[in-house]
């Protein structure tokens, strides 16, 4: 099986790769294998490739051209994947947005992106109001029947280092920020990750993560590279229903974030389900605490667990192989092959093994920067004299003599919660829209796994629930605080900014 997947690696040509090559090759190598599955549809690679051609010619006739941007908003389902692959096929740039995106974020992304087309799920008809100026197509409409139109000569699009897609994440300013990834980035990193994870054609990958999250999206790429199947689950299914869904869909590979695994541990300890097919779990998005890792090993003795670390800007930094866990527990593994990671001192010097500093990542997986944000791009991305791409991660840790990465802290600024990266500013700004609030400061209580919002109020006093409900108008669910703490005044830094360090110190007292 491994030989087969290696042979598909070698078929990828080094230069001039295009995202649409994945499906073209898979349709030749694995035409009859199942590719996409949701609760209604199951589709093989050959049929998916045909459908994508059909959709691509439809997009082409709608005027979508290479270089254009197309936004997609939908729950996980087969038609979402077919449409995003079709956008890539015509050479346009796609971006999958959260199906729970707020109207405010959608407006900000629309203004930045100027998409020519929006592919929208009927469940989000409310977003229609943001779409003026762009064409709107409903994703739920039945797929067009295959016709001779797939013979239309689709434009030969830019390859290699050209922009393939955007992944929107929270920026440090609280504004959504589009991370730009190229075809060459995807080609390199997909192969490098597969070399560590070794998915096989018989695998069925259970995706309960939204495809707006790069961790979910890339599972589609791994499947196309290896001939594996992807079950597109609903993120809501990652609760009580998860063990059942895993059994019903005969899932072999489960990519997850710590909250998903915490739920699985609870369910499995309390009412164990037989999951004979499950063989791989991967974790990223946040650190998987060692007790949880041990508990997963105990509950699923035959499952291989891969702790990983990454940032959307380069997709994946490091992966720990299951056989390395015992000797290197508490690390997030070694850097991907063909890449380099080191810790740097504040003075910009490369630290010796064991020294704690900011992680720097170098390699062909480092992306193109942030969409239309040259200043932010310059802060985080560097091109070295030899042309190599370097990413300044903002995360802190050390690299030991054997190359294993030990993670110490996320950047002081960004918060990782429930697998999402978010800026405290975004939450504070949403809070300050409420007239009753005079100030807000947001931090994460790492010990209790809670997102905490410190506030000062005046006049009419809101209850916590009323406040959180009002916040829900402007924030996605994962970003709604778990705890509200009221103070007469917030601690401030010398230049009058909310002092988050001081807030963190208060956590032990409140």
């Amino acid at each position, binding site marked *: 099986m491994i030989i087969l997947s290696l042979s598909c690696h070698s078929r990828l040509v080094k230069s001039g790769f295009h995202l649409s090559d994945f499906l073209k090759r898979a349709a030749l190598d694995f035409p009859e294998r199942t590719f996409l599955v949701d609760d209604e549809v199951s589709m093989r690679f050959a049929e998916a490739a045909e459908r994508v051609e059909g959709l691509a010619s439809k997009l082409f006739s709608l005027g979508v051209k290479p270089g254009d941007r197309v936004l997609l908003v939908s729950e996980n389902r087969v038609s979402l994947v077919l449409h995003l692959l079709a956008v890539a096929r015509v050479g346009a740039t796609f971006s999958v947005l959260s199906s729970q995106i707020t109207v405010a974020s959608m407006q900000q992304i629309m203004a930045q992106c100027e998409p020519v087309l929006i592919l929208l799920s009927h469940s989000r008809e409310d977003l229609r109001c943001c779409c003026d100026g762009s064409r709107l197509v409903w994703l739920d409409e039945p797929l067009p029947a295959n016709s001779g139109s797939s013979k239309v000569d689709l434009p030969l699009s830019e390859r290699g280092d050209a922009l393939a897609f955007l992944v929107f994440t929270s920026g440090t300013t609280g504004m959504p920020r589009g991370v730009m990834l190229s075809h060459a980035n995807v080609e390199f990193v997909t192969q490098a990750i597969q070399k560590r994870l070794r998915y096989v054609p018989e695998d069925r990958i259970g995706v309960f993560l939204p495809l707006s999250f790069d961790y979910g999206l890339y599972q589609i790429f791994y499947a196309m590279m290896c001939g594996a199947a992807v079950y597109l689950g*609903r*993120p*809501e*299914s*990652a*609760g*009580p*229903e*998860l063990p*059942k869904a895993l059994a019903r869909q005969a899932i072999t590979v489960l990519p997850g974030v710590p*909250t998903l695994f*915490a*739920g699985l541990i*609870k*369910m499995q300890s*309390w*009412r164990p*389900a037989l999951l004979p097919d499950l063989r791989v779990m991967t974790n990223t998005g946040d650190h998987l605490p060692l007790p949880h890792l041990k508990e997963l090993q105990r509950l699923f003795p035959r499952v291989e667990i891969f702790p990983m670390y990454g940032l959307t800007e380069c997709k994946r930094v490091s992966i720990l192989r299951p056989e390395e866990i015992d000797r290197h527990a508490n690390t997030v593994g070694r850097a991907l092959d063909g890449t380099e990671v080191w810790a740097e001192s504040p003075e910009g010097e490369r630290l010796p093994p064991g020294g704690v500093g900011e992680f720097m990542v170098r390699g062909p997986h480092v992306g193109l920067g942030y969409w239309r944000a040259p200043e932010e791009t310059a802060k985080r991305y560097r091109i070295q004299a030899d042309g190599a791409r370097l990413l300044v991660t903002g995360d802190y840790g050390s690299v030991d003599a054997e190359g294993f990465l030990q993670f110490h802290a996320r950047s002081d600024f960004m918060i990782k919660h429930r697998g999402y990266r978010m800026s405290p500013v975004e939450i504070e700004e949403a809070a300050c829209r409420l007239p009753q609030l005079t100030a807000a400061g947001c931090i994460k209580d790492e010990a209790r796994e809670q997102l905490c919002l410190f506030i000062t109020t005046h006049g009419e006093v809101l*209850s*916590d*629930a*009323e406040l*959180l*409900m009002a916040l*829900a108008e402007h924030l996605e*669910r994962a970003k*709604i605080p*778990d705890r509200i703490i009221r103070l007469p005044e917030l601690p401030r830094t010398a230049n009058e900014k909310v002092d988050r360090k001081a807030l963190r110190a208060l956590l032990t007292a409140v």
Partner: protein
Amino acid sequence: MSSEERLLALLRPFLRLLPADAELPMDAELGRLGLDSLQSIDLLLALEQEFGVSIPDEKITVDAFTTPAQVLTLVS
């Protein structure tokens, strides 16, 4: 207390977006009131304890946690 009242009392602490004095109708959308997938697991456990039942696997679906009325069907 009727099972409906017992259920609503049990649900309340799981709904952090529901004000303490607000009504909780049987068709309220629990997701909008703050119930997430991880909490649904705790809710399931609490239901079994409160109602002294063992909820069969086939009843545990995503839709079972959408409204109080749906949750009630788990224990009746």
